[in-house]
């Protein structure tokens, strides 16, 4: 019950804001330099370029490559630095505000060996903590499972991020559930980020530009999930010349086209486009077998992004994603699922001190499940969609304050299910009631430099959630669908006494939360910084899933009269070091996270085809704490990082595990990641990673008994046991094209699990049910370890045209 008193925090924040703003009025005459930074080669705007003025005042370009810095009148030296690019310096005599167009050149391969690969100690200078950016280039160099470069697998190599299961690209951040990650692709929510039952992520690495993960220190403009934000941006496309790339892998092929739109006389487009596609062909192997000829298993996705500059200050973007999986076993089951999203965005740098952006976003996830069992054939469909309007303004007030504020408004429609008979089966058509909800958040955030040593980023997000009609809400005897009987440690269902009818857009219930966000950076010296971060997050929509990793059939359900919003508080403290030339970096963070009103499910919950989800929900709380150390080497032939995570994550849910705290599925005490890249003098580049993780929790049976002719395990404590430790070495080698070669072909070889260790993905318990190929209940029990990923070599070929 020791909740922070916002009534006291809020005035303090405002005081801080007002205290510093007027100081400017009396200062000497100042002017603003603003503009965009682009990649000279293709016109792609560059996100997160560091701009240092006179070796002290710093800023970074925003998500659209825009910067604005206000400096006193007079002479200044501006230096722009960016990962993998030659730094760009400019001497300027500032007499009036001006707009700059900065083109940066990618460091050539020869130079890359000496060029510093990270931004000039941005890690130390930035106020942000708990934030990691991965370049797409790094992601592509990592050893890839069956040759598919995978964003979600790459972020699992970062400290504090772990995998939900070896064969899944679902991930846990700082002990949080896989449903607590907000995954954004060009600002659009991706509800299910995996293909092939979790084996691969939906993100085609070719089409991506930048990947940023917030493990903590989430800025006020993001909200809606408890644990993390994964912000993925697509490439805009080359605005100088038409070109393309393609890749052929063992399970899929990719192609990407990009080029300028409306070229001017200098050959630079007013806009550009990028279109990319990917299709798997694993099902081609099934064609080889007569038995499996009618079976289906494939996925494809399409990425699109176009932009056009209306003028120097205004730009329009249109981006989209569409992906599908299709799976069918004749006579048994068929399933199709996928995400679709579209984003229309307008950005404007109207005044040199203002940057405006407004996005209109639509996203959708749906699945269809066909039960093809004889006698009861039916098709089941479920979907969720939302429309999202996000206006935001950034005000580069002065050299000390950058203020962002805006609104994040979402309208959700949840269609939990519709059942349609197939083949004249007796199943009757039925549609579950749709749920409607609106989430509206207002936020303001200020990044403030108090002194050269002390900087703050503080903000407030006020989120509101409205459950809206039309819907008939079930009413229960004592007001709730379930009651907990402490004596028998059991949930009992309360009788339904009727329904209450709500008309279209009538308010059914409302919730709101105040979400303070704060980061503080104290620069001990230019190489060392100490940071402190606190954030509170609210999550209003809940994933209805009883499994550890996301599955295609998981649906989301909104908060309402019976399901309460979840919230989390996270406090983190960090130390950051960067060597003078930034060749080495060290970061060390500790965090404590508290989760309240955590949504879980009663023992034995049946969640599929269940309209009455509220009768399956149990509630509780969670806690997670840990320490994360990362040492990175950024320059030279050998680059990479070593990270160590020490963590604990627990839940306490009423009615589960005898109401005692228990380890969550993501609880992993120790985790070590070693990631390295080595550039040989010639055309070869090598990559490798070694992963070590202590055993994940597993539930061991506490006894067995017979029932209905089967042997049943009795489980009395959840997650009481541990799997054996996990370790794996993966290697990759990339053969780059000859400088002189015209074909621009690149070979990528990967080996996953080099020493072929059969790591336990799970240990489960079963009755032996087959003797000499005859199915038979034997009454004898055994424990079985399953392992995915033995040694898997793969090769893929990429080329440009």
């Amino acid at each position: 019950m020791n909740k922070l008193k916002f009534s006291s925090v809020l005035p303090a924040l405002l005081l801080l804001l007002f205290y510093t703003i007027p100081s400017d009025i009396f200062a000497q005459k100042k002017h603003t330099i603003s503009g965009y930074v682009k990649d000279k080669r293709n016109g792609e705007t560059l996100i997160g370029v560091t701009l240092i003025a006179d070796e002290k005042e710093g800023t970074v370009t925003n998500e659209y490559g825009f910067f604005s810095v206000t400096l006193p009148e007079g002479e200044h030296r501006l230096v722009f630095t960016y990962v993998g690019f030659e730094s760009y310096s400019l001497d300027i005599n500032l007499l009036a505000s001006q707009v700059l167009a900065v083109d940066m050149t990618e460091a050539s391969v020869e130079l890359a060996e000496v060029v510093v690969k990270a931004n000039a100690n941005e890690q130390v200078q930035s106020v942000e903590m708990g934030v990691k950016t991965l370049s797409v280039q790094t992601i592509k160099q990592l050893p890839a499972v069956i040759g598919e470069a995978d964003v979600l697998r790459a972020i699992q190599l970062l400290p504090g991020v772990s995998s939900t299961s070896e064969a899944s690209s679902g991930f846990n951040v700082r002990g949080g559930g896989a449903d607590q990650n907000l995954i954004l692709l060009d600002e659009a929510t991706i509800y299910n980020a995996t293909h092939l039952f979790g084996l691969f992520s939906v993100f085609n690495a070719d089409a991506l530009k930048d990947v940023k993960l917030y493990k903590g220190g989430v800025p006020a403009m993001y909200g809606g999930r408890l644990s993390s934000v994964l912000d993925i941006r697509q490439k805009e496309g080359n605005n100088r010349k038409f070109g393309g790339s393609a890749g052929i892998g063992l399970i899929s092929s990719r192609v990407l086209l990009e080029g300028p739109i409306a070229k001017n006389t200098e050959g630079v487009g007013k806009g550009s486009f990028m279109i990319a596609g990917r299709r798997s062909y694993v099902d081609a192997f099934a064609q080889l077998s007569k038995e499996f000829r009618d079976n289906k298993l494939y996925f494809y996705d399409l990425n699109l992004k176009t932009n056009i500059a209306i003028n120097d200050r205004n730009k329009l973007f249109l981006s989209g994603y569409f992906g599908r999986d299709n799976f069918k076993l004749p006579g048994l089951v068929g399933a199709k699922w996928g995400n679709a999203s579209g984003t229309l965005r307008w950005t404007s740098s109207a005044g040199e001190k203002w940057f405006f952006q407004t996005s209109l976003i639509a996203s959708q996830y749906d699945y269809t499940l066909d039960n093809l069992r004889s006698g009861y054939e039916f098709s089941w469909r479920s979907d969720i969609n939302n429309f999202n309007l996000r206006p935001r303004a950034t005000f580069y007030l002065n050299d000390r304050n950058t203020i962002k504020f805006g609104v994040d408004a979402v309208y959700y429609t949840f269609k939990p299910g519709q059942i349609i008979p197939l083949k004249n089966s007796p199943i009757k058509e039925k549609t579950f009631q749709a749920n409607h909800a609106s989430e509206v958040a207002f936020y303001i955030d200020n990044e403030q430099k108090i002194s050269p040593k002390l900087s703050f980023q503080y903000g407030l997000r006020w989120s509101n959630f409205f459950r809206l009609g039309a819907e008939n809400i079930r009413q229960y005897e004592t007001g709730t669908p379930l009651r907990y009987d402490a004596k028998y440690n059991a949930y009992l269902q309360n009788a339904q006494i009727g329904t209450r009818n709500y008309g279209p857009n009538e308010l059914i219930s409302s919730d709101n939360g105040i979400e303070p966000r704060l980061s503080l950076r104290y620069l001990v010296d230019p190489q060392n910084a100490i940071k402190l971060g606190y954030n509170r997050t609210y999550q209003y929509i809940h994933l209805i899933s009883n499994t550890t990793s996301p599955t295609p059939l998981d649906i989301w359900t909104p908060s309402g009269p019976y399901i309460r919003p979840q919230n989390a508080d996270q406090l983190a403290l960090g130390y950051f070091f960067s060597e003078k030339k930034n060749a080495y970096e060290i970061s060390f963070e500790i965090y404590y996270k508290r989760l309240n009103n955590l949504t879980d499910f009663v023992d034995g919950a049946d969640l599929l085809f269940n309209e009455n989800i509220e009768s399956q929900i149990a509630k509780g709380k969670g806690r997670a704490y840990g320490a994360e150390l990362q040492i990175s080497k950024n320059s030279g032939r050998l680059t990479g990082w070593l990270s160590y995570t020490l963590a604990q994550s627990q839940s306490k849910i009423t009615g589960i595990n005898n109401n005692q705290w228990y380890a969550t599925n993501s609880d992993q005490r120790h985790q070590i990641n070693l990631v390295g890249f080595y550039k040989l003098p010639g055309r070869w580049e090598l990559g490798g990673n070694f992963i070590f993780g202590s055993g994940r929790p597993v539930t061991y049976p506490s006894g067995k008994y017979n029932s209905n002719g089967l042997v049943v395990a009795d489980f009395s404590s959840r997650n009481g046991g541990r799997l054996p430790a996990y370790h794996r070495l993966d290697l990759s080698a990339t053969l780059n094209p000859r400088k002189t070669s015209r074909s621009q072909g690149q070979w990528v070889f990967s080996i996953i699990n080099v020493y072929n260790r059969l790591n336990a993905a799970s240990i489960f318990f079963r009755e032996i049910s087959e003797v000499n190929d005859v199915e038979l209940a034997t009454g004898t029990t055994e424990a079985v370890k399953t392992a995915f990923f033995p040694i898997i070599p793969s090769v893929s070929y990429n080329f440009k045209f």
Partner: protein
Amino acid sequence: MLNYHFQWGTTYKVAAYLFIVFAFSCEKVVTDELNVSQTTPRLVIEGGIERNEVRPKQPQRIRLTSTIPYLSKEQPSVVENATVKVDNGRKAWKLKYMGNGWYEGLDIQPEVGENFTLTIDWNGDRYQGSSIIQAAPKIDSIYYAYEQETSITDEGYFVRLDVADPAGVANFYYYRVLVNDTIFIVPDRGNNRTLILSDVFFDGQTSRRVNPNEEVRIKLGDRVTVQQLGITKGYFDYLYNLFTQTGNQGLSVVGNPPPAPIRSNILNITSPSKYPLGYFYTADVSEKSVFIQ
């Protein structure tokens, strides 16, 4: 290899197909490497009260055992010294111990709608719970056919049913297949969608070509009996969890539901924390048989 929602049908072929796809994943028996300890043994209740017009004289049987460590090679330990009573609110019967954990009552003639309460006194604790007999409609017809191999079943004889569901009532069904008078059941991930059915999506309809158990192997000369049990929602939920957990073949890429104790309808009213396992069910049984020839 699929998640647990895809529990229709045989695991092995689904797995085999996906093995072709992924060409990896393997299983290893680690029984001897694990030390799985046991908490205090719990009382286990099996059996119930069945109304069956075809077999009106059959005894009503309850079996009592207690749990043993999961990886033990022993047989379950039987409970011999309990007092077992059944009553329908008007009359009570004391069941007679017949050996091997079985307690029998011979003269119980249950009727649809009757509520039976089971009371067990054992080791100073009283266990109690009750269940109502739900009507089961008749099986319209039973027939068989020789069917070709599909991606989920082998070729062979399969028994099929046509059944009509009564309209306007929530029905829950449990199918038992007896081959030459022996009940056939194997742990399988399809059990929770094949052996039990709720009529929520087909209320009042006639279902045709229903396969009551996809795993049964039938040969020429066999006599196959299919029993359709009308069961309570409580027993349906119990069986759903039972079949889900016993059908878990660990082949999930994406994880299975968390293992949890399966709740009995019998409570230990003396010391609730020493809860029993198993279920005391009541059912109306309709059955039909067919010779495979």
